[in-house]
């Protein structure tokens, strides 16, 4: 479905010294700077998977997406999507894919979304019956029936994003590229988008490639993660394996009504709050239940919780200390 071999993308930009003299100098002398956005990237994604591309800003996620969709040309290496070379951009290939960019609108800004949908219907040669059925189904799922006839520029970001998704799925793509689809959305809108993608995937089984800085998106949708750091692939595997990337310990936090004895927790790398009423510990899966029972028995616990999003902590640690990946 998607296959890359030794894929490389370099960007060349030019340095300019500040001020008017710098501008004059740049007329005849410019220093070129080459940035390796993607380096010797190998990847294979079979059909039907939801894969999360993770990495810090500038890691190369979006560059990869752009190469997969044929928007930019690789500097070297091979990329094949659905048996096509994306950069040839033949119309047959374009009919099979869809791209949603959270930061860029695909819909026409000055007209109601329904007009854009009609245009997309014509571009993808969708029959009247299919169009009607898909619009009704998706509008209901996304709860946007009332928004279809409002000018896109008048919609909120969340509303617009729902319609963007709808527009991109109208032709039933075999691969859906989602580049930060929930960026800037409130929690309710994020949930709605996630639920929609999940139910759409369950029904039609397209391959989904997702980039997001929100780990809730990744946790809720992806079965496989690919981590990109500095343009290189640093991890590729199931989400469960990623969660155990820096050890399999669980993170548990306790809140106490009165200050407990700190010695009791010393074996589990405790992190105490300033007032000493809250502690966070790292504990193995096996020890988790007996230890929690002991704590509940011995101290006045007002609340306790296990970590909900281990991948968020792991991402944070890897972004701060990328060398941890070398130690694996």
């Amino acid at each position, binding site marked *: 479905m998607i296959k890359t071999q030794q894929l490389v993308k370099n*960007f060349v930009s030019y340095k300019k010294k500040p001020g008017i003299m710098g501008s004059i100098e740049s007329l005849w002398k410019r220093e070129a700077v080459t940035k390796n956005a993607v380096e010797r990237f190998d990847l294979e994604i079979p059909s039907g998977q939801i894969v999360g591309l993770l990495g810090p800003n500038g890691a190369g996620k979006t560059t990869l997406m752009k190469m997969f969709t044929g*928007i930019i040309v690789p500097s070297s290496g091979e990329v094949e999507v659905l048996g096509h070379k994306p950069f040839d951009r033949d*119309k047959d290939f374009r009919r099979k894919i869809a791209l949603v960019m959270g930061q860029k609108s695909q819909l026409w800004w000055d007209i109601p979304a329904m007009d854009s949908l009609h*245009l997309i219907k*014509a571009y993808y*040669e969708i029959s009247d019956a299919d169009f009607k059925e898909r619009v009704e189904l998706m509008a209901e799922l996304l709860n946007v029936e009332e928004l279809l006839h409002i000018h896109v520029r008048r919609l909120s970001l969340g509303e617009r994003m729902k319609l963007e998704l709808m527009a991109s799925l109208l032709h039933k793509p075999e691969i859906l590229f989602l580049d930060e689809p929930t960026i800037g959305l409130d929690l309710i809108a994020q949930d709605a988008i996630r639920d929609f993608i999940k139910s759409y995937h369950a029904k039609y089984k397209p391959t989904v490639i997702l980039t997001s800085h929100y780990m809730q998106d990744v946790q809720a949708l992806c079965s496989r993660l690919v981590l990109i750091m500095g343009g290189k692939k640093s991890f590729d595997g199931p989400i469960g394996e990623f969660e155990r990337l820096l050890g399999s310990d669980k993170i548990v936090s306790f809140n106490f009504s009165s200050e407990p004895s700190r010695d009791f927790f010393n074996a589990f790398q405790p992190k105490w709050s300033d007032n000493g009423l809250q502690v966070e510990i790292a504990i193995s899966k096996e020890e988790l239940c007996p230890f929690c029972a002991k704590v509940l028995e011995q101290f006045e616990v007002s609340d306790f919780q296990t970590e909900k999003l281990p991948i968020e902590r792991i991402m944070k640690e890897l972004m701060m200390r990328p060398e941890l990946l070398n130690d694996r």
Partner: protein
Amino acid sequence: MIANLNKWFQTMQISWTTLMAYRLNFALLVLGPALVFYFVKVSLWQTLYIDDTTVLQGFNLKEMLHYQSWSLVIVLLAQSSNGVNLSEDIRLGRISKYMVYPFNFWEFHTASFLSFQSLQFFIAGICLALLLFLDVLIIENLNYFFIGVLYSLLVGLFWFSVQYFTGLMAFWLDETWTMRAVFQIIVNFLSGAVIPLPFFPEWAQKVLVYTPFPSLTYTPIRIFMGDLSGLYQGLLTLFISMLFMIVINTLVWKKGVRLFSAAGM
């Protein structure tokens, strides 16, 4: 084939809807520069002619005003502002959506040009009717008039191919409007839109015959004014020039799109 035509038609419809969403802006965009340019030229020539009996290079004042009024009609019929959107699509990265949709960038912009042109045709019609009503213009021969209109629409296509080229320059340049403005000024001058070609020195007239410039304004004005002698040469020049622009635009697109980095998206 029908599905393909439908794509073009739907794109034109979207373009119409978008243009109509900003009606005043559209009218000002089409009429503003053309009318200002027209009134400047009319005032200039009225100053140069001492009285109604003065004849300069075969033109009396009335003929000169006819010449300038036909020039206005040609501008309204032929010069669209589509190139601005085109370069902004590239500069702001909106081009990405055309790369993903199964309808090419050039197809989208050509369809948009056709819809812009059709609305502009309507505005040109109103202006022409007004000029005829005010007796500023007369139609010498109805057949020549229709030939002139068709010829001007062809000039419009040539202008579009040029605007497409300047728009594609956005792959290399952050701003393309200066390039467009300079080109427009040069063409306006050399095509006879400001000064009729007989006013040019003889050597310049001989040189200009071998360029596409006279075919853009001077030839259609002559057709409207009842002289078909330059028609075939004008048509040939336009076809060759358009063919040349199509080849250049294809090459520039291929080169530019390879450089496109879609930065910041």
